[in-house]
């Protein structure tokens, strides 16, 4: 029994190893805000969102489409999706309450006893699931949900459960336990096998008058405690396999419920997120993943910023189809970092199978996503800041693939402009030759200008828009790098703020549409 709601043919592994740069991604793209928006205070939803988004880069376009369709079903039937989720949670909680006898987990006798209890509770929960399936299956169109409901109807037939009941009775052994054995190492008994007792086969007359097999009998003395213990160990050896089979069955059903809960948690997180965004009137759409070098979007905004702000966020429209290098320059506080983050977030959400925060979004799939952001402090103590920056870059190079995407935010600026530009140029040139997609926010004029002068067909240059009066629109427009990043503006704003319309700076993240 499998839920298969995240992949067509396999389970979703909540505990899988996250990408090595998980911490950098989380920090630089503010992913915790995204996960928080999906979780709405539920820690489990948070964990699932985190695993699904961070590991999403491995998904192929088929998996993405599979999830998009299931998500579409959930967005239209949120109540049914939540009721299935609740059954799974109830089954999992019920199992936790099952009684473990004192030495239960160590002795087959105890394991058998507990497994029987758990199985009885699971049967009830499975029946509830089947009822939901019978009632609502027709409202779901995705392949994923259709397969799921069909599986429930197929597996849960009444005849099968009747047979299970029969065994549960027999496993109480009213006629004694019969165990066969051979001589093992040191002539100790070995190879214990539980056998059907003759009483289960022979009729009364045979039992009384029939030939008895020759045998020798002894009786345990009532006060022989160590003997009683030894005898119960012997019984346990016989029960070992049967107890294992029952306990594994319980596990399997439990793991089915766990998987169902985990996989649905991802979609419920998406539903939560969508509900919040649509309440604000922010647009969302299902993106179009591409295998070609494409990048085009309209109204793309930073979902994390939106979750933290009451107002709607300024979106950007860009067509960068066929471009592998996007250089972003321009005014401080002009929305460059926000733009960079919105690209990274949309890419990750798309690849996880989610909707994205844009009116439309089309992008090529990547198999790795890296962020290389300026870090505020040097954590290593030993190495200088520039040293540390290059150390992180080198790690990225160790992991980079031709279909990677790297987001640089003011990298290599910890040295003078000339050296920084030269190193940035060498790194970017080498990466481009491997067709790595690069988004680079920079103040290094020599670097940005140098690339621009090369007139490369696969590069596009964006600039944070600044009106002649110095005010920012928080939009990015196509444009060549300028020699100043208007740091003076910021200085003026902070030190002589009277000259400027103040509101532009006190709420720099706000935008209009």
């Amino acid at each position, binding site marked *: 029994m499998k839920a298969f709601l995240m992949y067509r043919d396999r389970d979703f592994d909540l505990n899988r190893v996250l990408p090595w740069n998980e911490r950098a991604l989380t920090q630089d793209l503010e992913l915790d805000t995204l996960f928080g928006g999906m979780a709405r205070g539920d820690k489990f939803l948070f964990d699932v969102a985190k695993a699904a988004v961070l590991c999403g880069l491995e998904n192929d376009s088929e998996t993405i489409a599979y999830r998009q369709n299931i998500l579409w079903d959930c967005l239209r039937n949120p109540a049914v999706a939540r009721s299935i989720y609740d059954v799974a949670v109830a089954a999992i909680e019920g199992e936790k309450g099952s009684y473990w006898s004192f030495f239960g987990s160590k*002795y*087959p006798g105890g*394991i058998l006893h507990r497994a029987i209890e758990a199985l009885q509770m699971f049967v009830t929960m499975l029946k509830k699931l089947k009822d939901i399936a019978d009632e609502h299956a027709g409202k779901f169109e995705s392949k994923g949900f259709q397969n799921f409901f069909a599986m429930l109807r197929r597996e849960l037939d009444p005849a*099968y459960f009747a047979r299970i009941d029969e*065994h549960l009775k027999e496993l109480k052994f009213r006629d*004694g*336990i*019969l*165990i*066969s*054995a*051979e*001589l093992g*190492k*040191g*002539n*100790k*008994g070995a190879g214990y*096998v*539980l*056998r*059907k*007792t*003759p009483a289960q086969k022979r009729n009364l007359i045979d039992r009384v008058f029939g030939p008895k097999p*020759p*045998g*020798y*009998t*002894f009786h*345990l003395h*009532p006060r022989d405690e*160590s*003997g009683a213990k*030894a*005898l119960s*160990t*012997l*019984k*346990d050896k016989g029960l*070992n396999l*049967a*107890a*294992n*089979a*029952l*306990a*594994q*069955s*319980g596990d*399997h059903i439990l793991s089915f419920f766990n998987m169902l809960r985990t996989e649905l948690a991802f979609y419920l997180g998406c539903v939560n997120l969508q509900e919040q965004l649509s309440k604000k009137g922010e647009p969302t759409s299902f993106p179009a993943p591409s295998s070609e070098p494409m990048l085009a979007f309209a109204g793309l905004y930073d979902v994390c910023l939106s979750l933290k702000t009451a107002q709607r966020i300024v979106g950007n429209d860009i067509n960068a189809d066929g471009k592998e290098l996007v250089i972003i320059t321009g005014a401080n506080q002009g929305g460059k970092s926000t733009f960079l983050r919105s690209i990274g977030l949309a890419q990750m959400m798309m690849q996880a199978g989610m909707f994205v925060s844009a009116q439309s979004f089309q992008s090529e799939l990547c198999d790795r996503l890296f962020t290389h952001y300026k870090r505020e402090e040097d954590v290593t103590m030993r190495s200088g800041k*520039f*040293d540390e920056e*290059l150390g992180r870059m*080198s790690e990225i*190079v160790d992991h980079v693939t*031709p279909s990677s995407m790297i987001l640089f935010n003011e990298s290599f600026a910890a040295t003078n402009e000339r050296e920084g530009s030269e190193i940035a140029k*060498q*790194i970017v040139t*080498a*990466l481009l030759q491997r067709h790595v997609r690069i988004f680079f926010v920079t103040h290094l004029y020599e670097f940005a200008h140098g690339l621009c002068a090369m007139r490369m067909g696969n590069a596009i240059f964006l600039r944070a828009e600044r009106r002649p009066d110095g005010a920012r629109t928080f939009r990015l427009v196509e444009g060549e790098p300028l020699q100043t990043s208007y740091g003076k503006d910021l200085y003026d704003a902070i030190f002589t703020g009277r000259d400027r319309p103040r509101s532009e700076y006190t709420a720099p993240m706000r935008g209009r549409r």
Partner: protein
Amino acid sequence: MSFQSILFEHPEQELRGKAVGEPDFFADLNLGQVVDAICAGREEYDLKPFFYRSLSSVDAIGYRHEVMRDLENADVFAPVSAFTEKLRLMRAHLAQAEKLHYKFQKEAWFLDAVEIYCDAVYGFAQDLAAAAPASRGFGALCGYFGAYVAAPSFTSLSAETKRIKADLARVKYCVLIRGPSVTVRKYESEPDYSKDVEETFARFNESAVKDYRVEFSEWPDMNHIEAQILEFVALLYPEIFSNLDAYCAKNRNYLDATVAVFDREVQFYLAYLEHLAVFKRAGLQFCYPEVSERKDIYSSETFDLALAHKLVAESRPVVCNDFYLKGRERIFAVSGPNQGGKTTFARTFGQLHYLASLGCPVPGKEARLFLFDRMFTHFEREENIANLHGKLQDDLIRIHDILDWATPKTILIMNEIFTSTTLQDAIFLSEKILERILELDLLCVWVTFIDEVAGYGEQVVSMVSSTDPRNPASRTFKVVRRPADGLAHAMAIAEKYGLTYDRLKERLRT
């Protein structure tokens, strides 16, 4: 050719009049650590005495080289290793049989011990012959084992053991437990109930992860319930158990003395090779040195085995060194910055010669080493309460004694002596000692801060511990013939991280 020992072709010559204690220089050269590491896990064989006796002839060293080379061939090594492992197992069985109380149990463990022995000896004889070893040692051993396994005493022991094992394996019985009553009888094809249960629940068992089968801690001994059941089983199968009794009484002294001695002695080689394997995996090399009475010795890419053991365990790189003496050169005068590998160099030189004298491969790519008669070391000890005068006096007395004992075949290793006097005194004393050493024509490593020693004359070679030219602060632990040449150049940090265009092109190539 009759077989005596895998360690010596002529044991009586090599073992004559030699002490078996740890040599005096073991501590200074860290050879104690090396031998401890080599013998670790093989305490039962008492191998250390083998490592305390150096060999006195080139031929005796050759005998061991041949054996060692054979063992580096997997065709020889595998059967030897399997054989000794089995004998180890056999001894464990005999020890277990001793410990047990119930007769049928003791007998079963003894029976297994003999079975393991027969299997070990027979398999080894076959495999060793098939491997066609080249050494004198294994050649003779091969002949011995061939004859031993063909003898009737061995073949009948082997056959009898197999028969009794087969009889016991046929025994099958049932236990019916009903309340306090336990009945033992022969098994009569009652069907397997576990299988029935497993089949019914199979639908829910696909891809089961956790195994709920309980591992029962199996002590070799029995409780009284098991013993009672076994006694009933013996009543159900009386003939099989009386045969077992008779077998055990008859074969008490089955173990061959020569086989047992070989099992111990071959551990000398196995222990050493096993120790080397650790270093080889880390990319370090070993070679069979040419051992002779020539003093134009050399070694390339060699290292301190004790230090390397620590470094490899911590996955840190090991720095290798080269050295050679040519013509009339006799003395290495080692100087340079502290912590630069001077002492390590001196130890390496001593270790190499000692290990070579045991007939072992030595660290390095290739080597020609000197067959010494005695080796002396004089390392500075940590200062204790003795005053400066006392320490200098101790130094001089010790060196005087050494020079009294030394012959032209002696190796002398000195580390920072005369540190406890004025420089002028030190220079004076050093020159005096140097004259004596040259007169005796000793091979010598002398770690010293006194430049005059290094520049004394053509017999003295100056070696300097060097620093990384790119980073003078870091030590390379390389000791080289030439003096260190100048200061470091700061490398571009990008180059250090492999982030220049050229390096990136290289790194990004898949």
